């Protein structure tokens, strides 16, 4: 147990990525593996988990108190970060990445380090497609939008039939849980669930594997420490895609 107080960082740049998503760049580089996250302290409000979209940035969708408070911040403002935490993605061989919504954020470091070969990118609508340009530079990009304003008209899961899963040593996935559960169902059907790498979201309070708020059924795996990335075979038959616990520990359907 060495000291891990939140490191104060100043916001140096705020990038409007989509109408609902912003990247906050800060003045410190955090050495991390793709898919690792930090606990972001928004002073006076809350502390929430956020994937690192680069060694010195998080990319955030406004969904509630803490994220709204972040959106109200300016360059020069201070926040605290502790981490990096979690296992992150470990890849070898060819990688297929599948991302939806702000879930693309933890996948971006795979792209920027040249570890993603093909990327299936989904969003509600064209303007919400996250990091499309940066992905296109480094990987084969395929796009889907729910409303058909860009790429395939429909869910990103439907793009999977257009690639040959046998081509990839692993399939790294992050996005809304229903989307990820649909991907897992496909991989399972194709007999390659164990090659899926799913980055989970669960309510996190400590981030370091102690408090128990992110534990999942049936193995008691901690998303913050044993995850957030789990291979598909471990998730089969689990709570994944079915329910999750809230801040009180009560279960809710996802």
């Amino acid at each position: 147990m060495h000291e891990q107080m939140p490191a104060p960082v100043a916001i140096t740049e705020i990038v409007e990525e989509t109408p609902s998503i912003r990247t906050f760049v800060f003045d410190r580089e955090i050495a991390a593996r793709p898919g690792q996250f930090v606990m972001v302290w928004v002073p006076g409000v809350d502390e929430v988990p956020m994937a690192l979209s680069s060694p010195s940035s998080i990319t955030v969708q406004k969904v509630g108190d803490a994220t709204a408070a972040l959106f109200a911040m300016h360059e020069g403002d201070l926040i605290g970060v502790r981490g990096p935490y979690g296992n992150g993605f470990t890849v070898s061989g060819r990688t297929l990445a599948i991302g939806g919504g702000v879930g693309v954020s933890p996948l971006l470091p795979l792209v920027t380090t040249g570890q993603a070969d093909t990327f299936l990118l989904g969003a509600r609508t064209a303007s919400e497609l996250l990091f499309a340009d940066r992905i296109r530079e480094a990987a084969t990009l395929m796009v889907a939008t729910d409303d058909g304003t860009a790429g395939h008209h429909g869910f990103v899961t439907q793009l999977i039939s257009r690639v040959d899963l046998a081509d990839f040593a692993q399939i790294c996935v992050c996005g809304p849980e229903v989307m990820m559960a649909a991907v897992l169902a496909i991989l399972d059907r194709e007999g390659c669930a164990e090659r899926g790498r799913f980055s989970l979201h669960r309510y996190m309070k400590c981030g370091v594997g102690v408090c128990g708020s992110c534990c999942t059924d049936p193995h008691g795996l901690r998303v913050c420490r044993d995850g957030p990335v789990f291979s598909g075979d471990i998730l089969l038959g689990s709570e994944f895609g079915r329910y999750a616990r809230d801040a009180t520990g009560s279960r809710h359907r996802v």
Partner: protein
Amino acid sequence: MVTLYPGPVEVGGIRLRNHLLLAAGILGTTGASLARILASGAGGVVTKSIGPSPKEGHPGPCLIVVDGGIINAMGLPNPSAAFTEELAALQGEPVVVSIFGGTPEEFRTVAGWFAGRASGLELNLSCPHAEGYGAAIGSDPALVEECTRAAASYGVPTWVKLTPNVANIGEIGAAAERGGATAVVAVNTVKAMRISTALRRPVLGNRFGGLSGKAIFPVAVRCVYDLYEACSIPVIGCGGISTADNVVELMMAGASAVEIGSAVIDDIDVFSAIAKDLYGPDGVDAQEIVGCAHA
């Protein structure tokens, strides 16, 4: 180092697989997580503290890792009565349900939900960072006695967990014993706080919190030693344990069993790691060492 003979033990009316329990509030939110810790070598587990109504807990940060310890102010998040569902898969296992309330009546209510559904109860009269709960009650001997009596009225094994943040912990332990506790557990966290000098504000969302981990081990030894003299019911030691030698030390101070919490941060398999060092076929009976430092 002295080793102990392995095998089940009974402490304060509860039968455990060995002397090592998971402490309350550590990975204790779900049945699956409790089962995981049991499977990895714990002799028993204590759940997250459950109260009279669902609580989300304090805003974050809820926990900071400091040199030699952890400071937390979770704020007792819990699903209240719904927690009974988590226990379903743990029937027959050595599970102690930690409960809290703001009044003796609340303790009675919550105890009623779990009495008979687990091996026993542990009363959290010691959480230092939840207004009106825990240590707010636990530093008043009369209230401790009343709350204990209310929960113990169900006739199930009732452990009472004490706060070190009092001038005389022995006095509080004696009050719990009078109220019908079958064991006392010492200690909960030590009141503490850190401030971010860069952000010029307390780090924890709740400002105050409680220190646990190695830093408080000498405090735990002291409290267990005091309680062993003040009480005739068993004492269960807790606070900063991370090695088998720590367990032996707390036992010599007077602990009949121990609870381990923060050490899971370094190794979630700390229970099997400690058990490996602590138990051996040539080991002595724990009775031979419990309290021996008082001679």
